[in-house]
């Protein structure tokens, strides 16, 4: 019983939040890593791309809700997601055509593209705020819980509750599907293979007749899809606020770099490493240890919290610096930064 309580507390406060957050970060990091691998620059506008796609999806969600179209217990936002992706894809393709292509033709150094992406970031920042405002937007509807605290306690007789919210479950399932689709696309389809070839060696790929503009276009569409999915899931599970999405840039980059920039597997693993570190290091382990301690004397008197929750973002920074110092190519072999 004590052991079960400990496990349930751990699952409720650490594992479930971290897995959900980790999948959102992984989707974000995949987008960053694709841009880095194929277009060869760090895209600072990624957080705002997420915010833009989510904004479009929110507008369509509201429209559907207004028309009375819903998915029953599932959130309406899932229905609006493809439209959000389409809108976001159009926007990033336009950005590419107007801005990035110019620098690509000049064969501009990556550092110039990074600065250019910062400019794009500020513009998108403004566009999003202009469209939807700076406030919190709540667009989640449908059922709230798969397992709620009271029914879990009643069913199991444990002291600790276990809660699984529907948006959390949807996050996990959708993220898994998105990642599986992406890997299938990159490894099995002709376009995916040409993207990988382009990423490995641009000149060789051009010589073998791969059309670079097409590769770039497909990359942007995939990036828009990943960013919008990540953004909508984050907004559904937590809440949507433009500034928060901008701030997500740090953990997303940390995830991509920890996993190895340019390496999709690394991006997914990196997302979970960052999420579990952020939640685990700032969690107060007192309760779990109390359940596990065999005698009262061994129970901890303090909170057993490594860092206060204020320092959540500092955890991503610390891991980022450690990885850059000791393993610049990341856990999986990516490009060094």
């Amino acid at each position, binding site marked *: 019983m004590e052991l079960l309580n400990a496990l349930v507390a751990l699952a409720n406060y650490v594992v479930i939040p971290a897995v959900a957050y980790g999948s959102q970060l992984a989707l974000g990091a995949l987008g960053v890593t694709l841009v880095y691998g194929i277009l060869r620059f760090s895209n600072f506008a990624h957080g705002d791309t997420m915010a833009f796609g989510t904004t479009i999806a929110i507008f369509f969600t509201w429209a559907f809700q207004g028309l009375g179209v819903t998915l029953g217990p599932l959130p309406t936002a899932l229905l609006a997601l493809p439209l959000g992706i389409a809108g976001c894809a159009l926007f990033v393709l336009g950005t590419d055509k107007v801005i990035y292509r110019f620098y690509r033709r000049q064969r501009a150094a990556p550092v110039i593209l990074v600065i250019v992406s910062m400019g794009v970031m500020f513009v998108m920042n403004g566009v999003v705020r202009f469209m939807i405002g700076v406030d919190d937007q709540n667009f989640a509807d449908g059922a*709230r819980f798969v397992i709620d605290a009271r029914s879990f306690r009643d069913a199991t007789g444990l002291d600790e509750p276990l809660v699984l919210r529907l948006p959390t479950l949807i996050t996990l399932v959708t993220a898994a599907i998105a990642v599986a689709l992406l890997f299938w696309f990159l490894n099995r389809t002709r376009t995916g293979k040409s993207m990988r070839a382009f990423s490995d060696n641009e000149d060789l790929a051009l010589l073998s007749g791969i059309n670079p503009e097409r590769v770039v276009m497909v990359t942007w569409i995939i990036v828009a899809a990943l960013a919008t999915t990540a953004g909508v899931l984050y907004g559904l599970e937590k809440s949507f606020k433009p500034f928060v999405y901008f701030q997500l840039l740090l953990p997303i980059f940390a995830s991509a770099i920890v996993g190895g920039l340019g390496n999709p597997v690394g991006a997914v693993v990196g997302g979970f490493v960052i999420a579990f570190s952020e939640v685990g290091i700032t969690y107060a382990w007192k*309760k779990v240890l109390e359940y596990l301690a065999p005698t009262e004397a061994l129970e901890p008197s303090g909170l057993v919290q490594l860092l*206060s*929750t204020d320092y959540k973002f500092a955890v991503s920074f610390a891991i980022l610096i450690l990885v850059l110092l000791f393993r610049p190519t990341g856990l999986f072999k990516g490009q060094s930064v």
Partner: protein
Amino acid sequence: MKKILLASAATALVAGAVSAQDADPVRIGIILGFTGPLESITPAMAAGAELAIAEVNEAGGLLEGRMVEPVRADSTCIDSAAATAAAERLVTTDGVAAIMGADCSGVTGAILQNVARPNGVLMISPSATSPGLTDAEDDNLFFRTAPSDARQGVVMAEVLQERGITEVALTYTNNDYGQGLADAFTAAFEETGGTVTISASHEDGKADYSAEVGALASAGGEMLVVAGYTDQGGKGIIQNALDVGAFDAFFLPDGMVGQVIVDELGSGLETSVGTLPGTDSAGAETFQGLATEAGFDGTGAYAGESYDAAALMMLGMAAAGSTDSAAVSATIMDLANAPGEEILPGQLGRALELIAAGEDIDYVGATAVELIEGGESAGNFREVEFTDGSIETVNFR
């Protein structure tokens, strides 16, 4: 000859300006966070202050018939630089005689030090409650009709003690207000023999509070005390704690009590309790009647305090016979406290008559104002519960 002409023209201009000023209205700055974390309660606060001003104007104005004119400005509640600039504009451009505000403790301190003291302008805040402001250097220019949180901390501890709760977890918004209230509450609660299992700050404006709630839940406690803001992190913490089943009872101090949070969390707050400044004096009811007539919600947090703040500064001007802040400040304590005839809301005209006749008044107002040393309200609180989707007062302290 030319010089003489110029000089006389200048003199005439100056003389004209002086006489024009006499006919000028007396301006009072109302600086509150019309945008920012308190934006949902500030409209009623401003309306409260403007109600008092309208009442004085109806009674014939101040200082031999000069009308009083409110000038609104935005304190943003959180951005000290913006608040200072707004207050500076009130004093230099609009030429206000006194400042009613600001709302949040941080910006109030900033305005006091950067604008009010350098310019020697009287300032009465209706809602800055940080204990830190009690000892702030103020050249005797700063008063507040709200009690310090040191007092609210004691009241909160009393409420918990009476309900037999001895162990609580505490989270506070990371600013002057949250920190001050958390410290005051912890000290008072531990004195009554209670235990605070964890005192953790939270940042406002985040999307996700699961890590914060995880730490709070691990520390445990019978109740979670949330010293935050209704529109901000405070609500996020409660929502998350309810979702994961970490706590089911919450203690909501003044910054958290608002109809918005009750509407959004609904039955989740059934077992929760809150405190906010308030009194059962006759003044409170009269004020609510006047507010309803004027078309705003008089039960809103700090609406009554705002009325009182504006009323006190105008009565002060009448008593001092000028708008000079130093002279006005000297009268405030006497006006607010006994002895004298008690003045309730709606009786400002009567108060002006008494002052003109040279008699003492004891301003009671909407919130039973009683100023103690340091120029702050002694503090009356109401204890509220959240049943059936409304805020119900169960006790006065």
